[in-house]
């Protein structure tokens, strides 16, 4: 199924929660409202003509321009990207969820997105990684702990304004 048809299916089911279909890029994507992502995922996995059995990749990017010389700075936000694949119907779909960099604009308060770990098993680990490295709080996640960094690590390394620690358990940083 083409991404345009998937988009139409989602719009007729979820209405305003499906925000945008971005075409004219290498991998077209559908933007979904943060609150609806868990329901949309469940719908995409279970519907007989969609059947996205696999979550190929879940990742996040911090959109903050740190280069002051850049002429057109991007709108600061954090986005989570879902790459889905259907083994039985052999089609792909890319979803995006955009949230502010910090919850309610308070620096240090992680933005919240519903978890999809109950829809796809691998969502569990991918979300833990996104939480660990990019700093997104996945609500309803059964076990949202750091996965790659040590549990007492501070900050989220893939944030663009992340500063390397000067010291960690007696080990000097840069």
């Amino acid at each position: 199924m083409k991404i345009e048809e998937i988009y139409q299916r989602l719009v007729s089911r979820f209405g305003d929660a499906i925000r945008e279909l971005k075409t004219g890029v290498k991998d077209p994507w559908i933007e979904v409202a943060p609150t609806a992502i868990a329901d949309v995922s469940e719908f995409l996995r279970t519907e007989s003509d969609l059947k996205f059995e696999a979550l190929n990749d879940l990742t996040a990017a911090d959109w903050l321009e740190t280069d002051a010389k850049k002429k057109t700075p991007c709108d600061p936000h954090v986005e989570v990207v879902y790459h889905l694949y259907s083994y039985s119907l052999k089609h792909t779909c890319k979803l995006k969820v955009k949230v502010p960099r910090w919850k309610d604009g308070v620096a240090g308060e992680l933005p919240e997105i519903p978890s999809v770990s109950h829809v796809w098993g691998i969502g569990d680990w991918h979300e833990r990684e996104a939480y660990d490295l990019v700093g997104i709080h996945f609500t309803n996640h059964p076990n949202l702990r750091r996965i790659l960094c040590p549990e007492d690590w501070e900050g989220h390394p893939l944030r663009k304004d992340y500063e390397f620690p000067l010291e960690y358990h007696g080990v000097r940083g840069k």
Partner: protein
Amino acid sequence: MSLTLEDPRIVEFDVRTDEMLVNMGPQHPSTHGVLRLLLRTDGEIVHEVTPHIGYLHRCAEKIGENLSPPQWIPYTDRMDYLAAMNMNLGFSLTVEKLIGMEVPEKAMTLRVIIGELNRIASHLVGMGAYGLDLGTFSPFLYAFREREIILDLLEEVCGARLTYSYITIGGTTHDLPDQITIPPGLAQLTERNPNMQLSWINALRMFLDWMGPRIKEYHTLLTRNAIFVRRTAGLGILSPEMAMSYGCTGPVLRGSGVDYDLRRDGEAIYTRMYEGYKFKIPVAPFSDPAFGGIPQEVALGDNWCRFFVRMMEVAQSIEIIRQALDRYPTSKGEYRLPFKMNQKLPADEVYLETECPKGSMGFYLVGDGDAEPFRVRAKSSCFCNLSVTGPLCQGVLIADIPSIVGSLDIVMGEIDR
């Protein structure tokens, strides 16, 4: 049926053990690197397994945001260091997809030869180390004897034995060498003069001719070995639904009976490389009576199936390389298209998966008009394959944990990145 006190089984039932937490790793030899498994056990039975990873984490993705793509290629080497060529290939193709580059036919043929050769080397380590996990040492020695020759051949091509950085954006860094001295291992095994000079292609042909019949030996050593079958068959059964849900790919997915290989089903930029090649994709359940038939104890999606898929893939890779070698002399174009170190990337984002020996390795690349990507992400296949250990190891014996984890064939460098 009522039990009397004289019944010997009563003793068995009355044994009570305390629940105990056992740490397996991070320095345990059977965990293939620095993987720590926390087992909650009751006697010999494992109730829960929690993998702890991250001991090798170096945040390669953050480093990638500060380097241009050609500079980041050596970092992909160090992910799956047993199949570094396939990692290079995956990332190079992703960059080529982003900038819309199509490599010439000659570069594609070269990539097929090198990529499949590295796949054989990776599967050989997978096979040898799996035998080692289960307590048999000899297959490991055989596997490393063969792998040594492959490493020698790859060294002749690019100068490195493990971290090649050979496949690069636009093609490969060099063409194949014309004249080489025969690799010492190959000269010894085929009883040839150790100073023999020959072309690289002929050396590889000689190796493949020798390697082909050897696969049968591995099957005698492991596949049909009664002890090996008892330790692997019917154990660690992964259903196709679970495999798909947990994002398992590669031999783990095919061992569960899902017919999916990116070399055939992937995106056009990748499948273009394999156009016109004849090869089979081994998928469980197997009905092929080759190698003396399938043991009766085997169930769909068990350890044995995952192992056997890898063994069958080695034979297929040999076939692919043979076809590629026939094509190579008549392939058109250059082995490399230019890509500048500071070439600007377009403001777009792409995701591409390629079939690496251990599974589908995905790279996600976001450009913003600069030479350095805005975001680069490596989706590791072993990371997803390992995530299934928790549910897979529930209720098995402690001794079966190495058997199950080994059958997933993981490399920690790729999981931790």
